[in-house]
């Protein structure tokens, strides 16, 4: 270490220390860079009998700044996804130490209700801080030369299995382990030696099962939640008319008209269910009413209420296989075109005559 002292009688001591040649340090970060020496010296100015005396200088004291090994891994946010789709969990790794480090990356599953079997770690290959897809931000389990106070993004990428059901969640923990900037292991912590740069571990413990405090590692956990439509179906029937008792106290006798009610509901908070198709096969003893008076309208044995159709107003549909959403072919009633957002319901009414 080279020390330069400059002093004259009228100004206090100005002390300059040049960096040691044997430790090459990179960009000076907010934290004092490791390996440098910090020195200090005091001066005293005084008078005797009104006459100013020569200044007195103290000894010089010096200590070395050691290397702090510290890092944080944080997760941006949990992610919802439709089963069968590829989703991405985003993490940020920050070097909170005072020199440059390399890192190795690994992950483990936390609690899983479904398994993301193809989960891979991807790094920010083009260094732009955003996820650009698997072809640009490539798979890797290492980060090189993250300088002090710098951070970089890492992503866990995988497919939510098609078998996952609505609101199932699986958690994954990403861990970063620090290495020296040349890729070798960080020296173990040791008793202080004044002339040597020591490595001091300062990281906190994280959620990963192998991540303790002061072990050169940190981790964070994020979840995938499957979001599907969550449809439920109910069906009921009521006899509404018979030829003898009419509508007063109708009974299930030949010629009686039965009204079936089918309700389809999509669970609250579920994904939108598109292109719902309802198929109902009528019992062989049933057939669409032949008398128009017994139908909703001539040729219309079906009526539909669906939020996305006919402004949500209950509408009669034709039995014929035509442009509208319903048709009856043989015993099979088919209704298409219903779309339900989470929490919505649709209702189909079908009239049938007991043969």
């Amino acid at each position, binding site marked *: 270490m080279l020390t330069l002292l400059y002093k004259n009688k009228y100004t206090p001591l100005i002390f300059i*220390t040049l960096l040691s040649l044997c430790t090459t340090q990179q960009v000076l970060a907010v934290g004092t860079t*490791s390996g440098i020496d910090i020195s*200090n010296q005091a001066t005293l*100015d*005084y008078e005797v009998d009104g006459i100013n005396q020569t200044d007195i200088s103290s000894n010089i004291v010096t*200590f070395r700044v050691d290397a702090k090994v510290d890092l944080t891994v944080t997760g941006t946010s949990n992610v919802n996804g439709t089963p069968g789709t590829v989703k991405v969990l985003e993490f940020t790794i920050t070097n909170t130490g005072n020199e440059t480090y390399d890192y190795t990356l690994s992950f483990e599953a936390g609690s899983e209700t479904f398994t993301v079997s193809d989960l891979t770690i991807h790094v920010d290959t083009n260094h732009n801080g955003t996820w650009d897809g698997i072809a640009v931000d490539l798979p890797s389990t290492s980060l090189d030369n993250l300088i002090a106070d710098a951070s970089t993004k890492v992503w866990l990428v995988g497919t939510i299995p098609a078998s996952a059901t609505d609101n199932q969640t699986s958690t994954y923990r990403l861990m970063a382990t620090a290495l020296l900037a040349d890729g070798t292991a960080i020296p173990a912590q040791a008793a202080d030696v004044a002339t040597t740069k020591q490595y001091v571990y300062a990281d906190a413990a994280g959620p990963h099962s192998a991540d303790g405090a002061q072990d050169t590692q940190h981790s964070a956990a994020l979840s995938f939640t499957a979001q599907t439509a969550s449809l439920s179906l109910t069906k009921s029937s009521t006899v509404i008319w018979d030829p003898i008792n009419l509508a007063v106290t109708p009974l299930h006798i030949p010629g009686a008209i039965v009204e079936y009610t089918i309700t389809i509901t999509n669970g609250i908070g579920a994904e939108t269910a598109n292109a719902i198709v309802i198929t109902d096969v009528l019992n062989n003893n049933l057939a669409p009413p032949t008398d128009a008076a017994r139908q909703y309208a001539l040729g219309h044995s079906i009526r539909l209420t669906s939020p996305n159709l006919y402004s949500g107003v209950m509408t009669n549909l034709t039995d014929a296989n035509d442009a509208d959403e319903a048709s009856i072919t043989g015993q099979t009633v088919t209704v298409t075109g219903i779309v339900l957002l989470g929490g919505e319901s649709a209702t189909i009414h079908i009239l049938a005559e007991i043969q």
Partner: protein
Amino acid sequence: MKALIKHIVFNSIFIVLISATSAQAEKTGGIQLKIVVEKEVETTGLKGQTIIKRLEPFNMIPADKVVYTTQYHNTGTQNARNVLITNPIPKGLFYLKGSAEQPKTTVTYSIDGGKTFSPPPQLKITQKDGKQRPALAQDYTHIRWKIQSISVNEKGSVHFKAQLK
């Protein structure tokens, strides 16, 4: 006349020599000056109380705290007056506000590398937009204590705390 000139010349040489030797040593001039640096470590006691220890610096990493103590001892034969003790705040550390205030001293600070010293209310930084703001502890470059007098044989010390950036 010649004898007078010779006398003056001789004395001048003598004074110069004394000044040259005093510039290097820490002990001449009648006051011994010693600076010590310690690491301040906080631990929690059994009753939850905070215990502060001062130790030889070890494992110094950013955010660690140090105490610089400058000890003086008047080993000379005359009382010293209007004593000014000056310490730089080394680069890589920032001063912990208030830690240099000690009884029987007046403390001033420099924010211009030791050229001028003022009490905190007068320390102002001119910003890029031309406006002035009060200097913060992290803007200070030097600390200066003024002690009215140090009598013969008197010992004492001043100290300040700083934190590693």
